[in-house]
């Protein structure tokens, strides 16, 4: 089962940002699929690390775009980015300390964050660009 599906209304209207959003969704789905077969161990850790790096880089890019366009809600948006990175880091630490990542927690938290972030923060940014 695919965890996250790209929807056209996720688009913020900036090609490079949308491109990375799609890539991230793909990566998270791949991790989710891997979790189905293998709940702990190096593969999961590697996946998490990769996602963490990619999301960090993606947020860096998105924040650059927002800064360039003088987006007025950058601070709130960035705070939400930080919140996700912290969630992700918590999972990484838990995983490293030997906890088994359960599907509910992983899938639930990440999917919830992504869809929530897309619907609220990214949508607001999209609207501000349209103005």
């Amino acid at each position: 089962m695919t965890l996250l599906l790209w929807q056209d209304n996720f688009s913020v209207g900036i090609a490079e940002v949308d491109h990375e959003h799609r890539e991230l969704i793909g990566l998270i789905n791949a991790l989710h699929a891997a979790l189905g077969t293998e709940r702990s161990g190096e593969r999961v850790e590697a996946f998490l690390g990769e996602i963490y790096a990619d999301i960090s880089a993606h947020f860096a890019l998105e924040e650059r775009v927002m800064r360039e366009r003088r987006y007025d809600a950058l601070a709130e948006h960035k705070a939400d980015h930080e919140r996700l990175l912290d969630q992700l880091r918590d999972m990484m630490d838990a995983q490293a300390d030997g906890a088994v990542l359960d599907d509910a927690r992983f899938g639930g938290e990440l999917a919830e964050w992504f869809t929530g972030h897309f619907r609220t923060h990214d949508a607001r940014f999209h609207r501000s660009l349209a103005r």
Partner: protein
Amino acid sequence: MKRALRWLFERVEAGFAAVFGQRLNPIPQLGSLGWFLFWIVTVSGIYVYVFFDTGLTQAWESLERLSRDQWYLGGLMRSLHRYASDALVVVVFVHLLREFALDRMRGNRWFPWVTGVPLLWFMYACGITGYWMVWDQLAQYVAIATTEWLDAIGIFAEPIARNFLDSERLSGRFFTLIIYMHIALPLLMLLFMWVHIQRHAHARVNPPRGLALGTLAALVVLSYAWPAQSQAPADLDRVPFSLGIDWFYLTVYPLLDRMGGGSLWLVLAGGSLLLSLLPWLPPLRKPPPARVDLANCNGCSRCFADCPFGAITMVQRTDGLAFEQEAKVDADQCMSCGICVGACPTATPFRRAGALSAGIELPDRSVAGLRDELIAATAKLSGPARVLVIGCSHDAGSRALADDETAVVGLPCVGMLPPSFLDFALARHHVDGVMLSGCAAHDCYERLGDQWVEQRIANERDPNLRARVPRERVAVSWQNPAQPGRLRESLVQFRQHLRQLGPATAMGAASGATAATTGERPAAWRARLAEFGRPVRWSGQAAAYAVLVASVGFLATRPAYTYLAEDQALLKLSFSHAGQPLKPCRRYTPEELAKLPFSERKATSCERGRWPVYVELDLDGQPVYRGTHEPAGLWNDGPSAVYVRFEVPAGRHRVVARLRDNGADSGFTAFAERTIELAPGENFVVDYRAAEGGFVFGLPAQQGAGTEVP
């Protein structure tokens, strides 16, 4: 020599740090102090100019009036103008020496180094023209010596020193030109100062406020205690015996009197050339520049924002991916400090899938290698307070700190460390604390490393250190390389502090999860190192300022330079006279005229070209000068100019002058013989004016001293 100088500078800087504190330490601030002094000179100069009378005869008097009637402001401004300019020379040369000692002219740094060389010339030209404007005896000396020196280049058709031959021939025009130059040159200098800092991102052009105020206050005290004064007004008919010379700006003039203009030009031009070539002279050492890995670069531009040398530009994407930009490294400008790597969001050690490669990497120091080294070095540690020290290549010897409890990993600059490595080292329990060891604060060898590290830890700059990372386990120690003891002491204190905290295992995912994601975050932990008490520091600062202004005040006029012994006078042979034409003009014959095109017809045919002028001067029966002077001009049809001077003992002399301007092998076209009486310090000119019947000895006022011999 470079090593000895560096040793010296490190100790001097440590000494200043002890009394000024590192934030106000003037040694790393020499460049910005230079800017500050330049602005003082500019503001005070504009003020003085308002009251300055640009007339040759009124200039001196207007400055006297300013110093006398308006001593509290005008006099202050005038003194500040002089002393800040002098202090600028000190600051500039110490700055130059220090950059040389630290070898900070290699690679991309050739640019500020080379553009600094014309700045030296501008600075001197400004100083020299400035002293000229006062039109006192010093100005007179400067004017004559400078024009004679410029004449040594041989590009002027007629010696410009003849503008200042005696009071009769003095021309106010040249003086006016100098005034304009004294305005134009500083403007050009400012332009070059701007160019000088172009390749430095976030160049420091303002010193810290405390240092600026201290410097200004010291100069004000000096200005009131020892106001700048003019010397006696200029009198071109007298030669000053002894002069209070500004040894900061006018050092070349005594040299000029000893070695002659031509050789001094060669020395200065050669010296400037050598100075400009230094960045390319051995020992050359150029580590490979940073490289962008497009597979890991999305064009977020953080490396671009953090590069201290402007070596990174964001350019249009080249690999067809959906991104707009990518980072591009200019290999010539890259100093391989790695600060860009520390800024890259993909440079995180948590990555495990495949080979770890950041979006921008130093070929000599990969992020993957750094991660492996960190894990290997910390694996050997034991004890309750294991510390990882991240050192830089210019720190106070972090390498020597390695032991059973301490692992040391070296980087070109601590700014190269991505903050996630701190998170990684602590969260994965590799160590109980991390200490970053770098150059003295505000004096990062790679310019901005310490600044970015502090800001990343304090959440003021991306990529920031995550809030979850306990700041009490992250220490910074910015120490002067001359003081390894202070680095060692800060490590000892950090370890004690960690022992009190207990092992890092107590913290984990649970405690980190609740950490605030925004707002203030504490800065890194730092040791409390012993320092002097406030009275010692303040008196030390006062002493440092006092030494600076006392030496500036003293050398601005002392020791006096003896230009002419007190029983000597100056005899000048100088004139401008056109030799006879090589061929006299002749009338065209009617036949010749008929052949000429109508528009070119004229009465006479004149060929261009004149004979050189040969001149002899005898003094008391001894030949003192024999010279042939070629006519000026591309067609050799201009006047021949003569300018020679001799120091002669004061008293009665027999002078014989002879001149030949017709190209004959012997015989003279003009001859004169005189007995003259020279007073000590007298300036006596022997001129030749064909229109007035031949040689002219001295001014009308001086002619009483001589007797015509028929």
